[in-house]
């Protein structure tokens, strides 16, 4: 089962190293990891997706809590979070296929960032499943490059971690 862990850490050199080091050392598998500074410039938020049983997620949470640079850790409930991932995808495109690609982009809500005689660069921010669907739809046109950020998430409603 995929679970989303949100971690607030001190915004210092080496913190990310410490966290990823912890994951490899304890044999926890990371599905994705995204990091960025919060409203407070001294604090960063790391969103980690792990795919594993409850017992392991509990261990991850406890071990993260022990790190001095970690301020707060919270596992977000799947039904109670807003999670988004950004994908930039470059696909082969020519006069024949460009219109079909545009149609799919419209349906999925993707934006065109760049265009050349032989390619299009598209951008979509959505839930990971939706990105997978979009990627699958683009595959027949021959994908040149894909970059995904990993999910960032916050919980719904007025609460914060």
């Amino acid at each position, binding site marked *: 089962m995929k679970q989303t862990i949100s971690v607030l850490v001190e915004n210092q050199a*080496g913190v990310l*190293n*410490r966290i990823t*080091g*912890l994951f490899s*050392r304890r044999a926890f598998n990371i599905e994705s990891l995204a990091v960025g500074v919060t409203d407070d410039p001294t604090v960063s938020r790391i969103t980690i997706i792990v795919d594993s049983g409850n*017992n392991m997620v*509990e*261990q991850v949470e*406890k*071990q993260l*809590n*022990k790190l*001095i640079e*970690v*301020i*707060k850790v919270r596992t977000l409930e799947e039904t109670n979070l807003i999670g988004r991932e950004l994908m930039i995808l470059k696909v082969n495109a020519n006069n024949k296929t460009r219109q079909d690609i545009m149609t799919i982009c419209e349906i999925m809500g993707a934006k065109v960032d760049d265009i050349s005689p032989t390619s299009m660069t598209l951008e979509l921010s959505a839930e990971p499943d939706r990105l997978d669907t979009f990627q699958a739809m683009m595959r027949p046109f021959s994908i040149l490059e894909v970059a995904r950020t990993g999910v960032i998430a916050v919980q719904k409603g007025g609460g914060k971690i």
Partner: protein
Amino acid sequence: MKIRATQAIMECLLEQEVDTVFGYPGGTILNVYDELYNYKDKIHHVLTSHEQGAAHAADGYARSTGKVGVCFATSGPGATNLTTGIATAYMDSSPVVFITCNVTEPLLGKDSFQEVDITGIAMPITKATYLVRDPQTIPDVMRQAFAVAATGRPGPVLIDFLKNVTAPNVEIDYEFVPWTKNRSCGSIRALATSHELKAPEPNLGDIDTLVQMISQSERPMLICGGGVVRGRAHQQFRTFAEKLDAPVAITVMGGGGFPGGHPLTTGMVGMHGSQASNVACNECDLLIAVGCRFSDRVALQPESFASQAKIVQIDIDRSEIDKNVLTDHHIIGSAKRVLELLNQRLPQYSHPEWKERILPLREPSIPRDSERLTPKQVLEVIRRLAPQDTIVATDVGQHQMWSIQHFHFDYPGQLLTSGGFGTMGFGLGAAIGAKTGNPDKVVVHTTGDGCFRMNCNELATVEHYHLPIITVVFNNGTLGMVRQWQHLIYHERYSETTLDRGPDFVKLAEAYGLKGFRVTSRLEMEEAFSQALEAGCGCVLDCHLDMDEMVRPMVAGGAHITDFLLK
């Protein structure tokens, strides 16, 4: 007040009431050692032969005194030589602050002479690491490092100062704040809210649940783990055990947490645990483990461990709960506080039938008669002649298990052994730390010929500082524990374990200016040990034993706890 940065480092050590430091100087840490020269009346520095010895000594000092140990080393190889010592302290939750210096800022990251990323290397084996690039942060970092090392579950911390930070012309603002008050300064304040830089207060509901579980139990059993020792909770644990009237098994790290000669003791538990302890684990209906993480040497087969019992874990570290063995109930808090609360609520219980089942399984300790000197005879002589409060530091292997099985440890810090990391060569350094911190106690260092050969260079330290440490070498000409596995599991294929080589440990001791004794019989052992107790200097007893002696009992790794390979 403006003072030199290096002066601030020394003042911060004095804030923490540090009076002893172990270490080894070098190029990048020269400024710190230059300042130490000004402070030599207040801070006693013990210069070892090797940084690893200094690290083990600071660790042994911390374990035996309950204070935070401090160790200095230079950059590069000096720092990496510490790593085995840091890992040893980390695995056994021993509070040590390691201070290293690195190259100057402009040389950092250029693969400069004696440069290494020690904060990166030490990351997985410390509670925290600090790379200090700004001298103004020195007091804050020093205070935080000591607070982190000593509180909660203790452990090592490493501070790496860049050399330019310690330059003699660098001055910083500094005010003396005694350690009892510095919890309210600087970054520690924020840390105290996010990490509770104190032991978490136990939940009273959890305590009541356990009181209830105890009242329903007919066959309760206790495990005394390292947390009892580190938390200095031996008195509370003893009251608890006596109120419960339950058998007590002691882990390697728990040695000293419960009196070894107490009528409720069943001895060690796990791989080399006694039959009484292991059978009790298997047959009890309630198992309460205090400060014990159920390592693979205790809960050999986690799925079947204490399968008839409700398992209760009491630990200061939340991440230990359910890590190795799934528990039925747990209490988070320091062993001392949790046991105090439990003792207040518990009536006196009596479990005569259960004790009658378990306690007679303890092995009678009748020394075997043998032509050759046996390990038991050696230990028996030490136990008889040495004072009861003698501190024992061990290395790792057969002699370690024999020592722990045979001696009775009565107070925390009496047994110094590398239980978690299993570091060969730990013993002599640890003994130096223990003797430095406890000059009035007799310190015996038991070791094997394999272990002793690793770090016997520290005999120079023993001689120089006039530390009358008695080293007893269990010399069987082999890596005994590995040979035992080869004998039992690898069809007697003794690959590279026979140590048919020098040195002559008696001559070696003499070369270092110490006394050496060759021991081949019980009588010689008695004579040599009596002389060693009176010698007033370090002594090495080279005890020649048979290489096929084995540690009994033994359960193979991963096997069921009562599936004895050897009885």
